[in-house]
């Protein structure tokens, strides 16, 4: 088992929470893991990404080789485009939220962005904010996206649930429940739409 995952978004959108959840789940399953993160300058509303590699064997590089990512998980549609060059053209999936984070003056038309994504052979585009709101809070939109990506991670769904419980227990049972629901809703969406 080996999955190379790019997680992308804008600084402050919670991509490290997604990475940490997958990472924790991978450790629960006894897998190897490397996770390269962006810190520092790029966090002020700029683009951020993490490279997450999980595998049943040892992992060499901290960076995913170009053109070999199995998965791009993006919490922002424009940001998902930034890593097209990383995606494996034969097998790679792109999972992204359709909710734009518009903090630049030249933000393209959403339609043009989605059209570029819809040209890929394998993708899931999800209105994560709406799905999250339906589950109780827009704050869980990043976990909705994770849920939408969950069928492609090569991990047991229960491991992801355990990981979320572990990560959010500090913040109270309400937060755990909300995020578990968000995860499930994301998963259901993908199962219905692929």
């Amino acid at each position, binding site marked *: 088992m080996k999955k190379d995952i790019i997680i992308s978004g804008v600084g402050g959108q919670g991509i490290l929470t997604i990475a940490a959840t997958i990472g924790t789940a991978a450790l629960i399953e006894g897998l190897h*893991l490397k996770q390269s993160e962006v*810190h520092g300058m790029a966090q002020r*509303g700029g683009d951020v990404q993490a490279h997450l590699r999980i595998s049943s064997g040892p992992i060499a590089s901290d960076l995913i080789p*170009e053109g070999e990512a199995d998965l791009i998980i993006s919490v922002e549609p424009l940001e998902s485009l930034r890593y097209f*060059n990383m995606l494996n053209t034969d097998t790679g999936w792109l999972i992204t939220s359709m909710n734009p984070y518009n903090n630049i003056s030249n933000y393209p038309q959403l339609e043009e962005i989605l059209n570029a994504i819809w040209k890929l052979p394998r993708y899931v585009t999800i209105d994560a904010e709406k799905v999250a709101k339906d589950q109780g809070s827009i704050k869980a939109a990043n976990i909705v996206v994770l849920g939408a990506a969950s069928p492609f991670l090569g991990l047991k769904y229960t491991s992801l649930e355990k990981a979320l419980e572990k990560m959010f227990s500090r913040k109270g049972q309400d937060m755990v429940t909300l995020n578990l629901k968000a995860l499930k809703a994301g998963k259901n969406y993908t199962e219905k739409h692929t």
Partner: protein
Amino acid sequence: MEKLLLLGDEAIAQGALDAGISGVYAYPGTPSTEITEYIQSSKQSKENTVRSLWSANEKTAMETAIGMSYAGKRAMVCMKHVGLNVAADPFINASITGANGGLVVVSADDPSMHSSQNEQDSRFYGKFAQIPVMEPSNQQEAYDMTRYAFELSEKMGVPVLMRVTTRLAHSRSIVSRTDKPLQQNSLRLPSSPKQYILLPVNARKQYNGLLQKQDIFEQDAADSGYNVFIDGDDKSLGIIACGLAYNYLIENFPDFKIPYPVLKISQYPIPADMVKKLVDEVEEVLVMEEGYPLVEELLRGLLNEGKKIRGRMDGSLPRAGELNPKLVAKSLGMEVHNGFDLPGVLVGRPPLLCDGCPHTDSFLALNEVMKKYSRGRVFSDIGCYTLSALPPLESIDTCVDMGASITMAIGAADAGLVPSIAVIGDSTFTHSGMTGLLDAVNNHSPITVFILDNSTTAMTGGQHSSALNRLDDIVKGVGVDPEHIHVIKPLRRLHEENMKIIKKEVEYEGVSVVIARRECVQTLARRMKLKALEKKKAKQTAS
């Protein structure tokens, strides 16, 4: 053995704690900041009272650590690569005094300049100081080598430099921790009483001692196990892979089995015998290193008349920027995969000042004042406020190194550019702006220094600023005329008022200081959250 999921930076920190350090001394800087932050929040560090407050700058950090080493205890100093420029004087001289308690200097390089002004390679500083350098290739090595570096430092009686780069510093993996951490040293002054008095008569002796140790350093690098020769059947090529480059190399081969002989380098000075063994048996050599072509240049020599040496200097690998698995594969003539083409609609998303950032209001006022002058007069410094170089603000004209705003403004004013403005953050001001301000006062320079006091070191994530609650007194103490020191609150509703003050001082032909004081909205939000949490806790325990 306990297993921990750690960033490369955190592995170094944990390694240092388990090596029995008594103190870490540092000034923040990406990608080194998390080393000190880990120690600051570690339980182990609190239990053992490991000293870990931020220093005013890298030079003071280095000197304080030298003092702790002098007193016999183990000390670590951490900084980003350009910080080592600031600390270069004590760093080089510490190689002459030698170390008593273990002294390890960590310098985190930033090839590709993700958040830096340059991509200088700290290994050259190790060579310059003629001390051993460690360059881990993964998180486990980062952990193990830190302890080894302390042992080496005490065994050889010299400081040891540890060099990491961004991708290791900020990448997480599992690290096995030792069951046998070292205890801290007890107080013990150097046995040789004149070692730290670098008068020429002593310094010459000390320097000779350092020169004599060079062969032992090299021998240790051959024996420690951190430099390894891995044989391969195909002798058409030999590979030297330094630090992180080794990972990118093996990434390209199934089961990590390389057909060519490989020399993995993680400790310097490079053992000549190991290099000779490799070079002798292969037809040509490919050198992979993150940063400058240090090893490659050594191997080539000035005349480059020996075997063919490939790497960054002949274009096999790019001359600048960080390596990655694909670049390494290409240099080996291997087939590489391409992903999908980047769509035409993609646009960049540069970092911005946060919504509500105090710097924005400061610059809006300054911009309006500067409208009536020709452009090119605003000398800035390094911090969040440097982002004001970008649209929409486009307020500043320079950013060179920490502290350079004030001193460059003095020089430009001397040249006739009057008025000249310096813009500097509170943390940068106490890092290296204070001395420049003293120059300005002594020089009667017609400059206005705009100190943007957001009461934190924001750029690197909101660390404690040495300037906190001291700024006004420092400015007065340096000798700025109190009539020309103003504190304003950068808020949209005070725009007119603030502008008037700035305008008046910009027109004044002497040294003036305007302190714009309002807390960074990020640290403010964090403080409020913590406060609310504490309140909630207190309530719970009370009921």
